C-alpha cells in the first residue's frame, strides 16, 4: 500500500492489554500519525502461567490436563501432541481405534477453533452476527464432546496410550448430522461475511505476507498456507494415519487481492473446516472395533532420552520437546507454541497501515493468548 498522507505529530497509543480486539491480554504499543500506524510493538506475558515449569514438577500423565490450557480453543490437538511425544519416547503402541478417535476429536476441535476464528474475525471488522453463527455450530460440537467424554472446554480426551472414552453409534450419528449441517451453513457463512464487499475491501491486500517472509519468520499453520506455501504436517510429516485420509491442503491463492493477505489467511481457515469434515467422515467410516487404550503402567517411567514431536494444530505447528532423565517426571518440557511464533511477525507487517488494519492483521493471525504466554 502506498503511504501518501499528511504528516502530523505522532501519538503513542497503548492498545491493550484490555482492548476489545486483542484476543485477551495482548498489548500492542502503536505509534500512530493520525490514523496511520508507523510502528507496532507487541508486548506479551500477561497470561504467563509457568506451564513449562509445572511440566517439570508433575508426572507424565498428569501434565495432559495442563496441555488443555495452552491453546484452549484447540485443546484436543494439544493433548494429542503431548501424548504422541510421550508415547514415542516410551515406545507405547496405541490401539488403532484410539488413533481414529483421536483424529475425530482433533478434527472436530479444529472445526470448533476455526469457527471461533471466523466469529472473532467478523467481530473485529465490525460484524457481530457471524460471531453468534459461529458459536451456534460450535455449541453443537461441544454438545457432542459433552456426550462423548463429558467436558466442554478443557477436554483431556487423549490419555497416554489411548483416549478417555469411546464413541457410541449414537454419537457417531450426531457427528454425521453435524457434518451435514456444517456443510449447509458454511455457504451461509460465506454469503454473510466472506464475500461481503465491505469485508473483502477491509481484509484483501491488508497485511500481505509474501511466502519467503512467512517462512523466514517461522509462521506455521493457516498463516503459512495463506501465503501460498503448501505445507501441512498432516500430509508432510504424517502422524495418526493422516496420510491415508483423502483431503486437500487449502492454500492462499490471492482470490480477492494479493497472495498472503488477511483475506487469504481467513479463507484458508474457512476451507479447512470443509476439509476437516471430510477427514472426520472417512475416520468414522474406517474406524475398526477394538480397545481404546493401550496397557500403560500406573507409574510411568520413561527411558532416558529426548524427543521433539510436532503436530498440526488449528493455529499452526505445536511442538513438544521432551527431555527425560529416566524418572517419572519430565526433566525438561519445552512447548513450541504456534501462536507465539506467528505473533512475532506483527511488528514487521503492522507498519504503514491504518489503525483499523492493525486489528484486522492481528485478527487474521488468529492468536490464542493462553498459548502465546503459556
Amino acid at each position, binding site marked *: 500500500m502506498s503511504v501518501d498522507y499528511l504528516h502530523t505529530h505522532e*501519538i503513542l*497509543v497503548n492498545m491493550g492489554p484490555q*482492548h*476489545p*480486539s486483542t484476543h485477551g491480554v495482548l498489548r500492542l504499543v502503536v505509534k500512530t500519525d493520525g*490514523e496511520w500506524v508507523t510502528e507496532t510493538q507487541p508486548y506479551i506475558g500477561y497470561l504467563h502461567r509457568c506451564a513449562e515449569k509445572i511440566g517439570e514438577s508433575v508426572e507424565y500423565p498428569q501434565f495432559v490436563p495442563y496441555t488443555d490450557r495452552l491453546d484452549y480453543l484447540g485443546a484436543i490437538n494439544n493433548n494429542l501432541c503431548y501424548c504422541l511425544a510421550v508415547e514415542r519416547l516410551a515406545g507405547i503402541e496405541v490401539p488403532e481405534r484410539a488413533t481414529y478417535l483421536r483424529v475425530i476429536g482433533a478434527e472436530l476441535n479444529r472445526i470448533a477453533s476455526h469457527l471461533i476464528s471466523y466469529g472473532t474475525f*467478523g*467481530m*473485529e*471488522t*465490525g*460484524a*457481530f*452476527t457471524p460471531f*453468534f*453463527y459461529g458459536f*451456534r455450530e460450535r455449541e453443537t460440537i461441544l454438545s457432542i464432546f459433552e456426550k462423548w467424554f463429558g467436558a466442554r472446554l478443557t477436554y483431556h480426551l487423549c490419555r497416554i496410550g489411548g483416549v478417555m472414552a469411546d464413541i457410541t453409534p449414537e454419537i457417531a450419528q450426531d457427528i454425521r448430522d453435524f457434518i451435514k449441517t456444517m456443510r449447509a451453513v458454511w455457504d451461509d457463512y460465506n454469503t*454473510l*461475511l466472506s464475500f*461481503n464487499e*465491505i*469485508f473483502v*475491501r*477491509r481484509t484483501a491486500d491488508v497485511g500481505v505476507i509474501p511466502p519467503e517472509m512467512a517462512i523466514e519468520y517461522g509462521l506455521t499453520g493457516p498463516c503459512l498456507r495463506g501465503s501460498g506455501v503448501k505445507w501441512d504436517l498432516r500430509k508432510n510429516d504424517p502422524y495418526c494415519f493422516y496420510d491415508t485420509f483423502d483431503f486437500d491442503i487449502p492454500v492462499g491463492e490471492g482470490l480477492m487481492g494479493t497472495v498472503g493477505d488477511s483475506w487469504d489467511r481467513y479463507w484458508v481457515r474457512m476451507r479447512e473446516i470443509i476439509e476437516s469434515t471430510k477427514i472426520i467422515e472417512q475416520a468414522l467410516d474406517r474406524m475398526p472395533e477394538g480397545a481404546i487404550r493401550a496397557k500403560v503402567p500406573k507409574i510411568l517411567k520413561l527411558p532416558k532420552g529426548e524427543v521433539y514431536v510436532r503436530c498440526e494444530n488449528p493455529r499452526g505447528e505445536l511442538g513438544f520437546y521432551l527431555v527425560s532423565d529416566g524418572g517419572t517426571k519430565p526433566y525438561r518440557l519445552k512447548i513450541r507454541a504456534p501462536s507465539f511464533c506467528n505473533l512475532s511477525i506483527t511488528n514487521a507487517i503492522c507498519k504503514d497501515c*491504518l*489503525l*483499523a*488494519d492493525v*486489528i484486522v492483521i492481528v485478527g487474521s493471525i488468529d492468536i490464542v493468548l493462553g498459548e502465546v504466554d503459556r
Partner: protein
Amino acid sequence: MRELIEYLLTHVPLLTKVPSIFVYAVFILIGAGVVLGYISVMVIIWVYLERKVAGHIQARYGPMRVGPHGILQTIADAIKLFMKEDIIIPTSHKVLFIIAPFLVFFGAFAPFVVLPYSESLYLSKMNVGVFYLLALTAFEVIGIIMAGWGSNNKWALYGGMRHAAQMICYELPMGISVLTVVVFTGSLTLHGITNAQGWLPWQWFISPLKSPFTFIAGFVFYIAGLAATKRVPFDLPEAESELVAGYHAEYSGMRFAFFFLAEYTAMYLVCAVTSLLFLGGWNGPLPRAQGWLGNLLGLINVLSKTYFLLFVMLWLRWTLPRLRIDQLLSTSLKYLLPISLGALLGAAIQSAIF
C-alpha cells in the same frame, strides 16, 4: 403551534388577561416537554426493538428477563444509567466534558420542532425546515469533537476526529439529495415537500415512476443518514473493536445516557425525514380524513414508514462489517457525491422539461 396559541389567546378569556409572553413561554415549555417525553418513550421502544431484532437475527432471544419478553428491560437500563455514579475524569477538560453531551443531545432534539406528522399535527412550520434539519447536525459534530477532546483520552480523540471527518463528507450528498427533491417541490418546508407527493406509493419520490432521480436520491439520503447517525457500516467514531468506545469512552451514567439518547434520536430523525421526503410522509393508502382522525391516520402512516426504515437500519447493522476510514471517505466523495450530483442534474432537467 403558533396558530393554536393565537387561537387560545384570542378565544380563552383568562389568557387574554396575562401578558402574552408568559403564554408563549409556557406553551414553548410545554411543547419542548412533549417532544422530550415523546423522544424518551420512542427511544425506549427503539432500544428494546434493536435488542430484540439483534437477538433474533443472531439466533437468540434477546432480553427476556424483565417483564414479559423483556419489554421492561430498557426502562431498567435507563434507571440503571441514571442511578449510576457520574464520573468526571480528573484529567479531563471539565467544561467541555460536561457540556458536550448536552450539545449533542440538543443537536438531535431541536430538529423535532419542524417534524410534521400530518397536515395539522406539527409544532412549527418553519419555512426553511429542511435546511434547519441539516444545520443542526453542526451541533452534533461540535459536541462530539468536544467530547473527544474534553475526555483527554486518545481513543476518544480519534472518535471525535473520525466523526468530524465523516460528517463533513456526508453532509454534502445529504444536502444535495434533499435538493433533488426540492427541485420538484419548489419548497423548503417539510409540509410543502410532503404535500407534493400523492397518497399512493407510486406518487412518492422514492418511486422510479415519479422520477428516477429522486429514487436514487432517496437511497443516497438514507445511506448518508446512516453515516450521519454513526450506524453500521459507518460506525467508525465509536467502533468498538478499534476505538473501544470512541468519543464516549470516558462517559458514564447520565452523561453517557445523553449520548445514547442522542444517537437513537438522530436515528429516528433520519428515518422520519426520509419517510417525509421520499416515502410520502403522512400520505398513505389509508383513507384520508380531516380533523383528529386525519391526524391519527397521518401519525400512523409516518410512524409505520419510520419504523420500517428503522428496521432496515437494524437489519443492516446486524449484517454488515464496518468500513475503514479511507473507504468511508471515498464512499462519500467518490460514489455518493457524484451520484447525488448527477441525480440533481437529472432532476433539474426533468423538472424543466416536464
